[in-house]
């Protein structure tokens, strides 16, 4: 086993894949990324000249669902990604080594690939209890995160946990779980939110970096524009029913069977940036709305704390009250309305008595004169 790092191209050529098939792969990749055919050439050049990029995949507080999603990738197949496109040198969920043999890989990667490895984080570090709500190798996970981040080239924040905090950071966030960008502030962080994100979105982002050798263009919130610049609602196939005013009113009603819009069932498609309605899930089989449940905004910041998933108007939880905008508004307007009515009544009453007094006074003055 030599030290030589090998290029993606040489790996697949030696696997008996022809150059023609290789180029075909490149143009397919370009197409699946929504790039122009010209980009296929760039991909080919990149793959021919670069060694596989080391990827260190670490887990904080999480549910491993992001890993589970990743291995569902159909294009590329995850085995092709792991065997030929990247070098997944550390991932506690699938790696063969354990204990100090596993730990040793981290030290080695830091030294050998300084500023050249991608750090992929699933889950997030808790800060409460000195970080000991997530212990890894006897130490707080956050320490491991900080040290591996220091020498990384870039960080991928997988899923809503790493991007926003997700379920463990939902109120009252007992462990003080923090999104990655609250802990690592001096490295580029690519947020790939979703609980979990779509498999092909995950692999596309990794292969984008390895093939183009640059980071994808990010939006204001640090998400790759290519997958997160439009809402579920913008590409939802039930949108025509929304515009028409055709809604599911109750689970399993006529409208549900006809596939009408789920707005009234609390669908958060109108406020959720993700690729589900376009890319879909599990090789394009479906996505939440297609199977009858509204989107509950699993790729959005703090989506757990916006009230019930089934409410169209989400709850406001402030100053000890918990209600939606209409409840609060109606209460306020109602109170003011009552006050106005009362005020009007008192005014009228006062006016009447004053008038009467006025009349009496007038009479008196007449008498006097």
């Amino acid at each position: 086993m030599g030290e030589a790092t090998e290029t993606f191209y040489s790996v697949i050529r030696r696997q008996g894949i022809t150059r023609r098939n290789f180029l075909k792969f490149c143009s397919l990749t370009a197409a699946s990324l929504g790039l122009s055919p010209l980009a296929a050439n760039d991909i080919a050049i990149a793959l021919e000249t670069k060694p596989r990029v080391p990827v260190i995949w670490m887990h904080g507080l999480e549910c491993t669902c992001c890993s589970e999603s990743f291995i569902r990738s159909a294009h590329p197949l995850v085995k092709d990604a792991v065997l030929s496109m990247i070098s997944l040198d550390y991932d506690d969920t699938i790696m063969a080594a354990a204990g100090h043999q596993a730990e040793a890989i981290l030290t080695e990667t830091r030294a050998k690939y300084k500023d050249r490895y991608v750090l992929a984080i699933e889950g997030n570090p808790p800060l409460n209890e000195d970080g000991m709500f997530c212990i890894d190798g006897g130490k707080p996970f956050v320490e491991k995160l900080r040290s591996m981040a220091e020498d990384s080239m870039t960080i991928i924040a997988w899923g809503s946990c790493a991007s926003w905090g997700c379920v463990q950071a939902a109120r009252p966030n007992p462990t003080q779980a923090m999104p990655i960008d609250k802990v690592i502030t001096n490295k580029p962080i690519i947020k790939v939110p979703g609980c979990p994100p779509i498999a092909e979105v995950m692999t596309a982002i990794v292969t984008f970096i390895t093939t183009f050798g640059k980071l994808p263009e990010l939006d204001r919130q640090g998400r790759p524009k290519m997958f997160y610049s439009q809402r579920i609602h913008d590409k939802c196939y039930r949108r025509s029913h929304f515009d028409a005013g055709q809604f599911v009113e109750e689970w399993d009603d006529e409208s549900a069977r006809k596939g009408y819009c789920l707005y009234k069932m609390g669908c958060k498609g109108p406020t959720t940036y993700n690729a589900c309605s376009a890319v879909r899930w599990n090789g394009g089989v479906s996505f939440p709305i297609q199977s009858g449940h509204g989107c509950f905004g699993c790729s959005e910041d703090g989506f757990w704390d916006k009230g019930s998933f089934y409410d169209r108007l989400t709850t406001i939880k402030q100053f000890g009250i918990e209600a939606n905008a209409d409840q609060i508004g109606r209460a306020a307007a109602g109170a003011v309305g009552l006050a106005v009515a009362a005020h009007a009544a008192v005014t009228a009453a006062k006016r009447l008595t004053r008038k009467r007094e006025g009349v009496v006074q007038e009479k008196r003055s007449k008498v006097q004169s």
Partner: protein
Amino acid sequence: MRVQTPNGFTTDNSGKRIVVDPLTRIEGHLRVEVNLDADNVICNAVSSGTMWRGIETILRGRDPRDAWAFTERICGVCTGTHALTSVRAVENALGITIPENANSIRNIMQLCLQVHDHLVHFYHLHALDWVDVFSALKADPKATSRLAQSVSPWPRSSPGYFKDLQIRLTKFFDSGQLGPFKNAYWGHPAYKLSPEANLMAVTHYSEALDFQKEIVKIHAVYGGKNPHPNWLVGGVPCAINVDGNGAIGAINMERLNLVSSIIDRSIEFVEQVYLPDIELIGSFYRGWLYGCGLSGRSVMSYGDVPENANDYSTKSLRVPRGVILNGNLREVLPVDHGDPDQIQEFVAHSWYKYPDEFRGLHPWDGITEPNFELGANFKGTRTDIKELDEGGKYSWIKAPRWRGNAVEVGPLARYIIGYAQDKAEFKEPAERLLKALKLPVTALFSTLGRTAARALECQWAAHQMRHFQDKLVAHIKAGDTATADVSKWNPESWPMEAKGYGFTEAPRGALGHWIKIKDRKIDNYQCVVPTTWNGSPRDPKGNIGAFEASLIGTPMADPGKPLEILRTIHSFDPCLACSTH
């Protein structure tokens, strides 16, 4: 110090201490420490769950109808099973019933999870404890092909097929970038397979990786996506419309066909790849029957997969239900989730606080209050632990007990109970496999038995999927398309106070959720999870849990390389996110 535990094990923490942390190829964060005697035999074991998120705390004050989504995020590996348990708990509390079709669809989803999870666990989390990838490079592809064809009719067993993979693997190893295979235990004396068997297994590792993503498309059809499909209190969210106006937006013929074809392919894969592999690999490890632990004494299953909607009686449940204590296979005891004396959790050795640490609490009255403090004899510092002190608190996992007994849960427990109840569909396949391996029944109580039971169950579950899919179609044919009961959807229709529980048999074992509802909000929510049972730390009386018990007595070939520890712990398919939640 030698200690006799009340549940019949001898521990001795005087010898050399070995720490494995992180214990990889599992879900979540687990630490295992063992003591070795002079012959490198494990004589004490300490397992510690090293993560906690507080989902139970987070659930308080929320809408019970949302709870499934929160609890589903307890784990993405056994995705969906917590959600199902949760909707059952809420329905139980509020007296909500579900339509027959919803029951069938839920069962199909739960069984689909079993098939997927077991397959991925064996090939991608467990296999490398038995299979030496490096040795596969030395195999003869022709001989591998002959071997494969001798155990299975699987069509992809040509010499070229195995050769392709071998070439790919060779180049991969040659590149020097070993990825997930780096720093592993290749060449370890505890590996027993021939190079050909290794090559066959590695090839199927890769094939199973491709195939597993197909299985979960069933979740995508009925639940919109996988991982983390969608569920609904009162039924399922997907409506059925096979030939009406707008059928294209519902469960229609095309969707049913898709599910049906995946079920067929799953049965085929499990029967022609997974089971033959288990049998072949098992034959090399017939002599390695360590890891019995609690399995030979106390096991438990709640039962699951109700044949009839809303009927959770033992008769309706297709998965066996009951408890076996002290190895008495002649008596299967009944479980009652509502009995305050049966299921209780203790925290004397867990990082939580109870008013009285010597008493257990039934989940309805459960308390989850973190309290991170280390025992007096731990080594290291508070934030750099070198060795835990099992005499004090040492894990984020609570210690659940059934009538005070530590029990093992999971596929093996289910098969043992099914066996004890003389259920042919569990007993016969187990006996057939044992016979093929020329092993006695007692061989079931082992690491190997756990791994084999999982494979048998995978096959069982795949066939059950077929059963419920056919049932669903039959109902639709009879004109029943109902999938949800919304009569108690509106919280206004609920009582001001209610409590309930829901249970399932998750891939890793018995799973229960207990809920208390007050003023239409969750007042208390407690989960007692399979890996909470198996990964349990000691209880106040000193009973050790299943992980710990299973390691004791196992010899290690090379104490610097913990392969045997990994092998036995992995046979439980630990899920730490689940265990602590």
